[in-house]
Protein backbone atom coordinates (compact mmCIF):
# COMPACT_ATOMS: atom_id res chain seq x y z
CA UNK A 1 0.00 0.00 0.00
CA UNK A 2 2.68 2.45 1.01
CA UNK A 3 4.85 1.58 -1.96
CA UNK A 4 2.00 2.24 -4.37
CA UNK A 5 1.30 5.56 -2.69
CA UNK A 6 4.97 6.41 -2.95
CA UNK A 7 4.92 5.41 -6.58
CA UNK A 8 1.91 7.56 -7.19
CA UNK A 9 3.53 10.57 -5.51
CA UNK A 10 6.71 9.95 -7.49
CA UNK A 11 4.77 9.80 -10.71
CA UNK A 12 2.91 12.97 -9.77
CA UNK A 13 6.16 14.84 -9.30
CA UNK A 14 7.82 13.51 -12.46
CA UNK A 15 4.73 14.33 -14.52
CA UNK A 16 4.48 17.88 -13.26
CA UNK A 17 8.23 18.31 -13.24
CA UNK A 18 8.32 17.48 -16.95
CA UNK A 19 5.16 19.51 -17.46
CA UNK A 20 6.69 22.66 -16.01
CA UNK A 21 10.11 22.14 -17.58
CA UNK A 22 8.72 21.56 -21.08
CA UNK A 23 6.23 24.40 -20.80
CA UNK A 24 8.97 26.84 -19.83
CA UNK A 25 11.22 25.62 -22.65
CA UNK A 26 8.43 25.83 -25.19
CA UNK A 27 7.19 29.22 -24.14
CA UNK A 28 10.54 30.92 -23.53
CA UNK A 29 11.22 31.87 -27.18
CA UNK A 30 7.62 32.96 -27.70
CA UNK A 31 7.69 34.92 -24.48
CA UNK A 32 10.92 36.64 -25.54
CA UNK A 33 9.33 37.57 -28.85
CA UNK A 34 6.39 39.03 -26.93
CA UNK A 35 8.74 41.01 -24.67
CA UNK A 36 10.66 42.32 -27.67
CA UNK A 37 7.43 43.36 -29.35
CA UNK A 38 6.68 45.56 -26.32
CA UNK A 39 9.92 47.50 -26.43
CA UNK A 40 11.26 50.58 -28.13
CA UNK A 41 14.40 50.46 -30.22
CA UNK A 42 16.43 52.09 -27.53
CA UNK A 43 15.28 49.76 -24.78
CA UNK A 44 16.15 46.75 -26.91
CA UNK A 45 19.81 47.51 -26.96
CA UNK A 46 20.05 47.85 -23.23
CA UNK A 47 20.96 44.83 -21.12
CA UNK A 48 18.89 41.75 -22.11
CA UNK A 49 16.05 41.45 -19.67
CA UNK A 50 13.48 38.69 -19.80
CA UNK A 51 10.92 40.50 -17.68
CA UNK A 52 8.16 42.55 -19.25
CA UNK A 53 8.65 46.11 -18.07
CA UNK A 54 5.47 47.71 -19.40
CA UNK A 55 2.78 47.36 -22.01
CA UNK A 56 3.85 49.49 -24.90
CA UNK A 57 1.75 48.84 -27.96
CA UNK A 58 3.14 51.21 -30.53
CA UNK A 59 4.83 48.41 -32.48
CA UNK A 60 1.47 46.70 -32.81
CA UNK A 61 -0.39 49.83 -33.79
CA UNK A 62 2.30 50.70 -36.31
CA UNK A 63 1.98 47.30 -37.93
CA UNK A 64 -1.79 47.02 -37.80
CA UNK A 65 -2.51 50.45 -39.25
CA UNK A 66 -0.15 49.92 -42.16
CA UNK A 67 -2.25 49.39 -45.29
CA UNK A 68 0.46 47.25 -46.88
CA UNK A 69 0.32 44.96 -43.89
CA UNK A 70 -3.45 44.69 -44.14
CA UNK A 71 -3.18 43.72 -47.79
CA UNK A 72 -0.52 41.10 -47.01
CA UNK A 73 -2.69 39.69 -44.26
CA UNK A 74 -5.71 39.43 -46.57
CA UNK A 75 -3.59 37.75 -49.22
CA UNK A 76 -2.30 35.23 -46.73
CA UNK A 77 -5.80 34.43 -45.53
CA UNK A 78 -7.14 34.04 -49.08
CA UNK A 79 -4.21 31.95 -50.28
CA UNK A 80 -4.06 29.56 -47.34
CA UNK A 81 -7.82 29.09 -47.10
CA UNK A 82 -8.14 28.61 -50.85
CA UNK A 83 -5.26 26.19 -50.87
CA UNK A 84 -6.56 24.19 -47.90
CA UNK A 85 -10.01 23.79 -49.51
CA UNK A 86 -8.56 22.85 -52.89
CA UNK A 87 -6.16 20.37 -51.33
CA UNK A 88 -8.91 18.80 -49.27
CA UNK A 89 -11.17 18.18 -52.27
CA UNK A 90 -8.42 17.00 -54.64
CA UNK A 91 -6.78 14.81 -52.01
CA UNK A 92 -10.09 13.17 -51.10
CA UNK A 93 -10.80 12.28 -54.74
CA UNK A 94 -7.24 11.14 -55.44
CA UNK A 95 -6.96 9.08 -52.29
CA UNK A 96 -10.30 7.44 -52.93
CA UNK A 97 -9.09 6.49 -56.41
CA UNK A 98 -5.79 5.13 -55.05
CA UNK A 99 -7.52 3.24 -52.30
CA UNK A 100 -10.45 1.65 -54.17
CA UNK A 101 -9.48 1.20 -57.80
CA UNK A 102 -6.97 -1.21 -59.24
CA UNK A 103 -4.91 1.32 -61.13
CA UNK A 104 -1.79 0.23 -62.99
CA UNK A 105 1.32 1.06 -60.96
CA UNK A 106 -0.67 2.25 -57.98
CA UNK A 107 2.19 2.09 -55.43
CA UNK A 108 4.56 3.86 -57.78
CA UNK A 109 2.07 6.64 -58.42
CA UNK A 110 1.63 7.03 -54.68
CA UNK A 111 5.37 7.27 -54.12
CA UNK A 112 5.80 9.66 -57.03
CA UNK A 113 3.12 11.91 -55.56
CA UNK A 114 5.10 12.07 -52.33
CA UNK A 115 8.41 12.82 -54.04
CA UNK A 116 6.95 16.15 -55.13
CA UNK A 117 7.43 17.37 -51.59
CA UNK A 118 11.13 16.50 -51.55
CA UNK A 119 12.45 18.91 -54.16
CA UNK A 120 14.92 21.47 -52.78
CA UNK A 121 13.06 24.70 -53.51
CA UNK A 122 15.86 27.06 -54.55
CA UNK A 123 16.67 25.63 -57.99
CA UNK A 124 13.02 25.00 -58.78
CA UNK A 125 12.27 28.69 -58.42
CA UNK A 126 13.79 29.40 -61.81
CA UNK A 127 11.51 27.19 -63.93
CA UNK A 128 8.55 28.23 -61.81
CA UNK A 129 9.40 31.86 -62.36
CA UNK A 130 9.60 31.35 -66.11
CA UNK A 131 6.36 29.41 -66.04
CA UNK A 132 4.60 32.07 -64.00
CA UNK A 133 5.73 34.98 -66.12
CA UNK A 134 5.83 33.52 -69.63
CA UNK A 135 4.00 30.20 -69.98
CA UNK A 136 0.84 31.22 -68.22
CA UNK A 137 0.29 34.48 -69.94
CA UNK A 138 -2.78 35.87 -71.61
CA UNK A 139 -1.92 38.68 -73.95
CA UNK A 140 -5.39 39.96 -74.54
CA UNK A 141 -8.98 38.80 -74.52
CA UNK A 142 -11.31 41.06 -76.38
CA UNK A 143 -15.00 40.41 -76.83
CA UNK A 144 -17.03 42.88 -78.88
CA UNK A 145 -14.31 45.50 -78.67
CA UNK A 146 -14.27 45.30 -74.90
CA UNK A 147 -10.84 44.35 -73.59
CA UNK A 148 -11.40 42.04 -70.66
CA UNK A 149 -7.87 40.94 -69.92
CA UNK A 150 -4.63 42.43 -70.99
CA UNK A 151 -1.16 41.14 -70.29
CA UNK A 152 -2.29 38.83 -67.50
CA UNK A 153 0.24 36.45 -66.01
CA UNK A 154 0.12 33.94 -63.20
CA UNK A 155 2.95 35.86 -61.56
CA UNK A 156 1.89 37.88 -58.53
CA UNK A 157 -1.61 36.41 -58.32
CA UNK A 158 -3.31 34.67 -55.44
CA UNK A 159 -4.50 31.83 -57.65
CA UNK A 160 -0.93 31.18 -58.71
CA UNK A 161 0.14 30.62 -55.13
CA UNK A 162 -2.96 28.57 -54.36
CA UNK A 163 -2.15 26.19 -57.22
CA UNK A 164 1.58 26.12 -56.52
CA UNK A 165 1.20 25.27 -52.84
CA UNK A 166 -0.56 22.08 -53.91
CA UNK A 167 2.88 20.78 -54.84
CA UNK A 168 3.91 20.37 -51.23
CA UNK A 169 0.48 20.08 -49.60
CA UNK A 170 -1.17 17.48 -51.84
CA UNK A 171 1.44 14.76 -51.23
CA UNK A 172 1.17 15.26 -47.49
CA UNK A 173 -2.62 15.31 -47.60
CA UNK A 174 -2.89 12.19 -49.75
CA UNK A 175 -0.55 10.35 -47.43
CA UNK A 176 -2.58 11.34 -44.38
CA UNK A 177 -5.88 10.42 -45.99
CA UNK A 178 -4.64 7.16 -47.52
CA UNK A 179 -4.65 5.44 -44.16
CA UNK A 180 -7.97 6.95 -43.19
CA UNK A 181 -9.76 5.80 -46.35
CA UNK A 182 -8.02 2.42 -46.39
CA UNK A 183 -9.43 1.97 -42.91
CA UNK A 184 -13.02 2.37 -44.08
CA UNK A 185 -14.28 -1.12 -44.99
CA UNK A 186 -14.94 -1.48 -48.71
CA UNK A 187 -18.14 -3.39 -47.86
CA UNK A 188 -19.72 -0.11 -46.80
CA UNK A 189 -19.13 1.29 -50.30
CA UNK A 190 -20.61 -1.83 -51.85
CA UNK A 191 -23.65 -1.71 -49.59
CA UNK A 192 -24.28 1.90 -50.54
CA UNK A 193 -23.89 1.07 -54.23
CA UNK A 194 -26.35 -1.82 -53.95
CA UNK A 195 -28.78 0.61 -52.37
CA UNK A 196 -28.48 2.63 -55.55
CA UNK A 197 -25.92 5.28 -54.63
CA UNK A 198 -23.63 6.47 -57.38
CA UNK A 199 -20.00 7.38 -56.98
CA UNK A 200 -20.83 10.82 -55.65
CA UNK A 201 -23.37 9.32 -53.28
CA UNK A 202 -20.75 6.96 -51.86
CA UNK A 203 -18.30 9.82 -51.41
CA UNK A 204 -20.92 12.05 -49.86
CA UNK A 205 -22.68 9.60 -47.52
CA UNK A 206 -20.03 7.00 -46.72
CA UNK A 207 -16.53 8.37 -47.16
CA UNK A 208 -17.06 11.98 -46.12
CA UNK A 209 -18.62 11.36 -42.70
CA UNK A 210 -16.28 8.50 -41.82
CA UNK A 211 -13.12 10.35 -42.77
CA UNK A 212 -14.15 13.66 -41.19
CA UNK A 213 -11.41 13.79 -38.51
CA UNK A 214 -8.75 12.91 -41.09
CA UNK A 215 -10.08 15.53 -43.48
CA UNK A 216 -10.11 18.11 -40.71
CA UNK A 217 -6.46 17.46 -39.90
CA UNK A 218 -5.57 17.54 -43.57
CA UNK A 219 -7.24 20.90 -43.99
CA UNK A 220 -5.68 22.32 -40.83
CA UNK A 221 -2.14 21.22 -41.62
CA UNK A 222 -2.42 22.32 -45.26
CA UNK A 223 -3.70 25.66 -44.08
CA UNK A 224 -0.78 26.05 -41.69
CA UNK A 225 1.85 24.95 -44.23
CA UNK A 226 0.42 27.42 -46.76
CA UNK A 227 0.17 30.20 -44.19
CA UNK A 228 3.81 29.67 -43.21
CA UNK A 229 5.34 29.28 -46.68
CA UNK A 230 7.97 31.86 -47.51
CA UNK A 231 10.34 31.04 -50.36
CA UNK A 232 7.82 30.70 -53.21
CA UNK A 233 5.74 33.61 -52.01
CA UNK A 234 8.80 35.84 -51.81
CA UNK A 235 9.96 35.07 -55.34
CA UNK A 236 6.74 34.60 -57.28
CA UNK A 237 4.87 37.68 -56.13
CA UNK A 238 5.80 41.33 -56.19
CA UNK A 239 3.06 43.69 -55.06
CA UNK A 240 -0.49 42.42 -55.28
CA UNK A 241 -0.27 38.90 -53.89
CA UNK A 242 2.50 39.17 -51.33
CA UNK A 243 1.88 37.22 -48.17
CA UNK A 244 2.55 37.98 -44.54
CA UNK A 245 5.67 35.80 -44.24
CA UNK A 246 7.44 37.84 -46.92
CA UNK A 247 6.69 40.95 -44.88
CA UNK A 248 8.49 39.35 -41.93
CA UNK A 249 11.62 38.85 -43.98
CA UNK A 250 11.43 42.39 -45.32
CA UNK A 251 12.06 43.72 -41.83
CA UNK A 252 15.61 42.39 -41.93
CA UNK A 253 17.24 45.13 -43.97
CA UNK A 254 20.75 46.29 -44.64
CA UNK A 255 20.28 49.44 -42.62
CA UNK A 256 19.30 47.48 -39.53
CA UNK A 257 16.40 45.39 -38.44
CA UNK A 258 13.36 46.81 -36.77
CA UNK A 259 13.15 43.99 -34.24
CA UNK A 260 10.25 45.44 -32.29
CA UNK A 261 7.91 45.55 -35.26
CA UNK A 262 9.21 42.25 -36.56
CA UNK A 263 8.34 40.63 -33.24
CA UNK A 264 4.95 42.32 -33.14
CA UNK A 265 4.16 41.05 -36.62
CA UNK A 266 5.34 37.53 -35.76
CA UNK A 267 3.01 37.55 -32.77
CA UNK A 268 0.12 38.64 -35.00
CA UNK A 269 0.89 35.91 -37.57
CA UNK A 270 0.85 33.34 -34.81
CA UNK A 271 -2.67 34.20 -33.65
CA UNK A 272 -4.84 32.67 -36.44
CA UNK A 273 -2.99 29.35 -36.41
CA UNK A 274 -3.03 29.22 -32.62
CA UNK A 275 -6.80 29.72 -32.56
CA UNK A 276 -7.32 26.96 -35.10
CA UNK A 277 -5.15 24.56 -33.16
CA UNK A 278 -6.88 25.23 -29.86
CA UNK A 279 -10.28 24.67 -31.45
CA UNK A 280 -9.26 21.54 -33.33
CA UNK A 281 -6.96 19.99 -30.72
CA UNK A 282 -8.96 16.77 -30.45
CA UNK A 283 -9.18 16.05 -34.18
CA UNK A 284 -5.49 16.59 -34.74
CA UNK A 285 -4.53 13.53 -32.73
CA UNK A 286 -7.42 11.45 -34.06
CA UNK A 287 -6.52 12.11 -37.66
CA UNK A 288 -2.75 11.83 -37.54
CA UNK A 289 -2.34 8.04 -37.45
CA UNK A 290 -1.36 7.90 -41.14
CA UNK A 291 -3.50 4.76 -41.08
CA UNK A 292 -0.42 2.86 -40.10
CA UNK A 293 -2.23 1.24 -37.22
CA UNK A 294 -5.04 -1.07 -38.15
CA UNK A 295 -6.94 -3.42 -35.97
Amino acid at each position, binding site marked *: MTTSTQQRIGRFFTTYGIWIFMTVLTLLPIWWMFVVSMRTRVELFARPNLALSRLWLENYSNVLTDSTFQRYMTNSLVVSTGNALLVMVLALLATYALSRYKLAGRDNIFFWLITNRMAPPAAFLLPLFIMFTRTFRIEEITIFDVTLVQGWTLYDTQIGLILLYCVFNLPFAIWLLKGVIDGIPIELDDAAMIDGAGLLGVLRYVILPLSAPGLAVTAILSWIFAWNEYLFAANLTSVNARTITTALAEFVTVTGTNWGELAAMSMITLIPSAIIVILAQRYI*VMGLTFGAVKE
Partner: protein
Amino acid sequence: MRNPRTGWLLLSPTLIILIIFGFAPFLYVLFVGFNQWNVFSAEDGLIFNGLDNFRRLVFDEDFLHSVGLTLRFAIFAIGSQIVLGFLLAQMLTRNFPGKSIFRVIHTLPLMVAPIAVGAIWRLLVIPGFGPVPFFLDRWFDFDYRIGTYPDQAMLTSVIMDVWHWTPFVTLTMLAGLSAIPREPVEQAKVDGANRLQVFWYVTLPFLRPVLLTTVFIRIMDAIRTVDEVWMLAGGGPGTRFTGIYIWRVVFPRTDYGYGSSISIITLYLTIVLCWLLFIAISGKSKDEVE
Protein backbone atom coordinates in the same frame (compact mmCIF):
# COMPACT_ATOMS: atom_id res chain seq x y z
CA MET B 1 -18.15 -2.78 -60.66
CA ARG B 2 -15.11 -0.56 -60.26
CA ASN B 3 -13.95 0.71 -63.57
CA PRO B 4 -10.28 1.84 -63.47
CA ARG B 5 -11.24 4.62 -65.83
CA THR B 6 -13.32 6.26 -63.10
CA GLY B 7 -10.32 5.94 -60.80
CA TRP B 8 -8.08 7.74 -63.27
CA LEU B 9 -10.73 10.41 -63.66
CA LEU B 10 -10.76 11.00 -59.89
CA LEU B 11 -6.98 11.07 -59.83
CA SER B 12 -6.59 13.34 -62.86
CA PRO B 13 -6.95 16.81 -61.25
CA THR B 14 -4.22 15.94 -58.75
CA LEU B 15 -2.01 14.49 -61.46
CA ILE B 16 -2.50 17.52 -63.72
CA ILE B 17 -1.58 20.02 -61.01
CA LEU B 18 1.44 18.02 -59.87
CA ILE B 19 2.65 17.42 -63.42
CA ILE B 20 2.42 21.12 -64.26
CA PHE B 21 3.86 22.55 -61.04
CA GLY B 22 6.00 19.66 -59.88
CA PHE B 23 7.10 17.44 -62.73
CA ALA B 24 7.57 20.05 -65.46
CA PRO B 25 9.89 22.19 -63.32
CA PHE B 26 11.73 18.98 -62.42
CA LEU B 27 12.30 18.18 -66.11
CA TYR B 28 13.48 21.73 -66.68
CA VAL B 29 15.92 21.57 -63.77
CA LEU B 30 17.14 18.19 -65.03
CA PHE B 31 17.72 19.69 -68.47
CA VAL B 32 19.52 22.76 -67.16
CA GLY B 33 21.65 20.47 -64.98
CA PHE B 34 23.37 19.20 -68.11
CA ASN B 35 24.20 22.68 -69.31
CA GLN B 36 26.49 25.47 -68.43
CA TRP B 37 24.36 28.50 -67.74
CA ASN B 38 25.71 31.44 -65.86
CA VAL B 39 24.38 34.93 -66.37
CA PHE B 40 27.80 36.40 -65.60
CA SER B 41 29.75 34.19 -68.00
CA ALA B 42 31.23 35.51 -71.22
CA GLU B 43 28.99 33.43 -73.45
CA ASP B 44 25.30 34.00 -73.07
CA GLY B 45 22.65 31.34 -72.65
CA LEU B 46 22.75 27.61 -72.17
CA ILE B 47 25.74 25.64 -73.36
CA PHE B 48 25.45 21.87 -73.29
CA ASN B 49 28.32 20.40 -71.31
CA GLY B 50 27.21 16.86 -70.62
CA LEU B 51 28.17 15.54 -67.24
CA ASP B 52 30.63 18.33 -66.40
CA ASN B 53 28.41 19.78 -63.66
CA PHE B 54 28.10 16.40 -62.04
CA ARG B 55 31.82 15.78 -62.28
CA ARG B 56 32.38 19.18 -60.71
CA LEU B 57 30.10 18.54 -57.75
CA VAL B 58 31.78 15.26 -56.84
CA PHE B 59 34.97 17.23 -56.21
CA ASP B 60 33.26 20.32 -54.81
CA GLU B 61 34.35 20.43 -51.19
CA ASP B 62 31.77 23.05 -50.27
CA PHE B 63 29.01 20.83 -51.59
CA LEU B 64 30.27 17.67 -49.91
CA HIS B 65 30.70 19.60 -46.69
CA SER B 66 27.13 20.88 -46.96
CA VAL B 67 25.82 17.33 -47.47
CA GLY B 68 27.72 16.18 -44.39
CA LEU B 69 26.33 19.07 -42.36
CA THR B 70 22.79 18.44 -43.56
CA LEU B 71 22.99 14.76 -42.66
CA ARG B 72 24.43 15.55 -39.26
CA PHE B 73 21.71 18.13 -38.71
CA ALA B 74 19.00 15.69 -39.79
CA ILE B 75 20.31 12.82 -37.65
CA PHE B 76 20.74 14.86 -34.47
CA ALA B 77 17.51 16.80 -34.85
CA ILE B 78 15.30 13.89 -35.87
CA GLY B 79 16.84 11.55 -33.31
CA SER B 80 16.14 13.95 -30.45
CA GLN B 81 12.67 14.69 -31.77
CA ILE B 82 11.75 11.00 -31.88
CA VAL B 83 12.99 10.27 -28.35
CA LEU B 84 11.51 13.41 -26.86
CA GLY B 85 8.29 13.11 -28.83
CA PHE B 86 7.82 9.51 -27.76
CA LEU B 87 8.38 10.29 -24.07
CA LEU B 88 5.97 13.22 -24.16
CA ALA B 89 3.37 11.18 -26.03
CA GLN B 90 3.75 8.39 -23.47
CA MET B 91 3.14 10.98 -20.76
CA LEU B 92 0.09 12.35 -22.58
CA THR B 93 -1.58 8.94 -22.84
CA ARG B 94 -2.15 9.11 -19.08
CA ASN B 95 -4.81 11.38 -17.67
CA PHE B 96 -3.75 14.16 -15.37
CA PRO B 97 -5.14 17.59 -14.58
CA GLY B 98 -3.76 20.24 -16.88
CA LYS B 99 -3.14 17.79 -19.73
CA SER B 100 -5.07 19.66 -22.39
CA ILE B 101 -3.39 22.96 -21.50
CA PHE B 102 -0.03 21.27 -21.85
CA ARG B 103 -1.02 19.82 -25.21
CA VAL B 104 -2.06 23.22 -26.53
CA ILE B 105 1.11 24.92 -25.26
CA HIS B 106 3.25 22.12 -26.61
CA THR B 107 1.62 22.37 -30.07
CA LEU B 108 2.23 26.12 -30.35
CA PRO B 109 5.73 26.02 -31.90
CA LEU B 110 4.38 23.95 -34.78
CA MET B 111 2.16 26.88 -35.72
CA VAL B 112 4.91 29.48 -35.96
CA ALA B 113 6.04 30.19 -39.51
CA PRO B 114 9.59 28.88 -40.15
CA ILE B 115 10.71 32.37 -41.04
CA ALA B 116 9.34 33.65 -37.71
CA VAL B 117 10.97 30.73 -35.88
CA GLY B 118 14.28 31.82 -37.36
CA ALA B 119 13.60 35.40 -36.31
CA ILE B 120 12.66 34.44 -32.74
CA TRP B 121 15.76 32.31 -32.28
CA ARG B 122 17.94 34.94 -33.81
CA LEU B 123 16.54 37.37 -31.28
CA LEU B 124 17.42 34.89 -28.55
CA VAL B 125 20.97 34.18 -29.60
CA ILE B 126 22.57 37.17 -31.31
CA PRO B 127 25.40 38.56 -29.19
CA GLY B 128 24.80 41.88 -27.49
CA PHE B 129 21.07 41.55 -27.85
CA GLY B 130 19.75 38.12 -26.97
CA PRO B 131 19.44 36.81 -23.44
CA VAL B 132 21.05 33.42 -24.18
CA PRO B 133 24.63 34.61 -24.82
CA PHE B 134 24.25 37.22 -22.09
CA PHE B 135 23.29 34.78 -19.35
CA LEU B 136 25.65 32.06 -20.54
CA ASP B 137 28.48 34.54 -20.28
CA ARG B 138 27.39 35.87 -16.93
CA TRP B 139 26.61 32.63 -15.14
CA PHE B 140 28.98 30.15 -16.74
CA ASP B 141 31.55 32.43 -18.31
CA PHE B 142 30.80 30.67 -21.58
CA ASP B 143 31.60 32.36 -24.86
CA TYR B 144 28.58 31.78 -27.06
CA ARG B 145 28.69 33.30 -30.52
CA ILE B 146 26.99 31.46 -33.38
CA GLY B 147 28.65 33.66 -35.98
CA THR B 148 32.10 32.65 -34.82
CA TYR B 149 31.87 29.00 -33.79
CA PRO B 150 30.45 26.62 -36.42
CA ASP B 151 29.65 23.92 -33.85
CA GLN B 152 27.58 26.30 -31.77
CA ALA B 153 25.71 27.46 -34.86
CA MET B 154 25.01 23.83 -35.77
CA LEU B 155 23.87 23.00 -32.25
CA THR B 156 21.61 26.05 -32.19
CA SER B 157 20.00 25.03 -35.49
CA VAL B 158 19.41 21.53 -34.11
CA ILE B 159 17.85 22.88 -30.91
CA MET B 160 15.71 25.26 -32.92
CA ASP B 161 14.50 22.44 -35.15
CA VAL B 162 13.79 20.28 -32.12
CA TRP B 163 11.82 23.11 -30.57
CA HIS B 164 9.85 23.61 -33.77
CA TRP B 165 9.12 20.03 -34.81
CA THR B 166 8.98 17.90 -31.66
CA PRO B 167 5.27 18.79 -31.27
CA PHE B 168 4.58 17.20 -34.63
CA VAL B 169 6.33 13.98 -33.58
CA THR B 170 4.51 14.02 -30.26
CA LEU B 171 1.16 14.30 -32.04
CA THR B 172 1.81 11.45 -34.47
CA MET B 173 3.23 9.28 -31.68
CA LEU B 174 0.23 10.05 -29.52
CA ALA B 175 -2.06 9.07 -32.37
CA GLY B 176 -0.05 5.87 -32.81
CA LEU B 177 0.02 5.04 -29.11
CA SER B 178 -3.70 5.59 -28.61
CA ALA B 179 -4.45 3.21 -31.49
CA ILE B 180 -2.57 0.31 -29.88
CA PRO B 181 -5.05 -2.30 -28.63
CA ARG B 182 -4.99 -2.92 -24.88
CA GLU B 183 -5.14 -6.72 -24.85
CA PRO B 184 -1.57 -7.51 -25.98
CA VAL B 185 -0.15 -5.07 -23.44
CA GLU B 186 -2.25 -6.52 -20.63
CA GLN B 187 -1.41 -10.03 -21.77
CA ALA B 188 2.31 -9.28 -21.70
CA LYS B 189 2.00 -7.83 -18.21
CA VAL B 190 0.14 -10.92 -17.03
CA ASP B 191 2.90 -13.05 -18.50
CA GLY B 192 5.33 -11.18 -16.27
CA ALA B 193 7.02 -8.80 -18.72
CA ASN B 194 8.58 -5.72 -17.17
CA ARG B 195 8.02 -2.24 -18.58
CA LEU B 196 11.07 -2.35 -20.83
CA GLN B 197 10.03 -5.72 -22.26
CA VAL B 198 6.47 -4.51 -22.85
CA PHE B 199 7.88 -1.52 -24.65
CA TRP B 200 10.32 -3.56 -26.74
CA TYR B 201 8.15 -6.53 -27.68
CA VAL B 202 4.64 -5.05 -27.76
CA THR B 203 4.55 -1.27 -28.04
CA LEU B 204 7.42 -0.83 -30.48
CA PRO B 205 6.24 -3.33 -33.12
CA PHE B 206 2.78 -1.74 -33.05
CA LEU B 207 4.31 1.71 -33.25
CA ARG B 208 6.79 0.85 -36.00
CA PRO B 209 4.72 2.02 -39.00
CA VAL B 210 3.86 5.37 -37.37
CA LEU B 211 7.46 5.75 -36.29
CA LEU B 212 8.85 5.13 -39.77
CA THR B 213 6.27 7.40 -41.39
CA THR B 214 7.14 10.19 -38.99
CA VAL B 215 10.86 9.75 -39.67
CA PHE B 216 10.13 9.75 -43.41
CA ILE B 217 8.23 13.04 -43.23
CA ARG B 218 10.82 14.64 -41.00
CA ILE B 219 13.74 13.58 -43.21
CA MET B 220 11.95 14.93 -46.25
CA ASP B 221 11.44 18.31 -44.58
CA ALA B 222 14.76 18.50 -42.71
CA ILE B 223 16.81 18.06 -45.88
CA ARG B 224 15.10 20.93 -47.64
CA THR B 225 15.17 23.29 -44.65
CA VAL B 226 16.13 26.77 -45.77
CA ASP B 227 14.02 29.54 -44.27
CA GLU B 228 14.56 29.09 -40.55
CA VAL B 229 18.27 28.37 -40.65
CA TRP B 230 18.83 31.16 -43.14
CA MET B 231 17.00 33.59 -40.87
CA LEU B 232 18.89 32.31 -37.82
CA ALA B 233 22.44 32.35 -39.06
CA GLY B 234 22.32 33.88 -42.54
CA GLY B 235 24.17 30.91 -43.99
CA GLY B 236 27.14 31.43 -41.70
CA PRO B 237 29.71 28.76 -40.87
CA GLY B 238 28.34 25.48 -39.54
CA THR B 239 24.89 26.01 -41.00
CA ARG B 240 25.60 25.96 -44.69
CA PHE B 241 23.18 23.14 -45.42
CA THR B 242 22.58 21.81 -48.90
CA GLY B 243 19.38 23.82 -49.33
CA ILE B 244 21.22 27.01 -48.44
CA TYR B 245 24.22 26.09 -50.57
CA ILE B 246 21.96 25.60 -53.59
CA TRP B 247 20.40 28.95 -52.84
CA ARG B 248 23.83 30.59 -52.80
CA VAL B 249 24.90 28.97 -56.05
CA VAL B 250 21.67 29.81 -57.86
CA PHE B 251 21.01 33.33 -56.65
CA PRO B 252 23.98 35.44 -55.70
CA ARG B 253 26.26 33.54 -58.10
CA THR B 254 23.55 32.92 -60.75
CA ASP B 255 25.22 29.66 -61.69
CA TYR B 256 21.95 28.07 -62.80
CA GLY B 257 23.45 25.03 -64.52
CA TYR B 258 25.54 23.95 -61.56
CA GLY B 259 22.79 24.79 -59.05
CA SER B 260 20.37 22.63 -61.01
CA SER B 261 22.70 19.65 -61.08
CA ILE B 262 23.21 19.92 -57.31
CA SER B 263 19.46 20.03 -56.83
CA ILE B 264 18.99 16.93 -58.94
CA ILE B 265 21.57 15.00 -56.95
CA THR B 266 20.14 16.16 -53.63
CA LEU B 267 16.64 15.22 -54.74
CA TYR B 268 17.94 11.85 -55.90
CA LEU B 269 19.63 11.16 -52.55
CA THR B 270 16.48 12.15 -50.67
CA ILE B 271 14.35 9.90 -52.85
CA VAL B 272 16.65 6.91 -52.36
CA LEU B 273 16.70 7.41 -48.61
CA CYS B 274 12.93 7.77 -48.45
CA TRP B 275 12.34 4.84 -50.84
CA LEU B 276 14.17 2.56 -48.42
CA LEU B 277 11.99 3.78 -45.57
CA PHE B 278 8.90 3.45 -47.74
CA ILE B 279 9.74 -0.18 -48.48
CA ALA B 280 10.26 -0.76 -44.77
CA ILE B 281 6.83 0.71 -44.03
CA SER B 282 4.82 -1.01 -46.75
CA GLY B 283 6.77 -4.27 -46.44
CA LYS B 284 5.65 -4.50 -42.84
CA SER B 285 2.00 -3.95 -43.66
CA LYS B 286 2.14 -6.65 -46.35
CA ASP B 287 3.31 -9.14 -43.73
CA GLU B 288 0.33 -8.24 -41.61
CA VAL B 289 -2.08 -8.94 -44.44
CA GLU B 290 -0.72 -12.40 -45.10
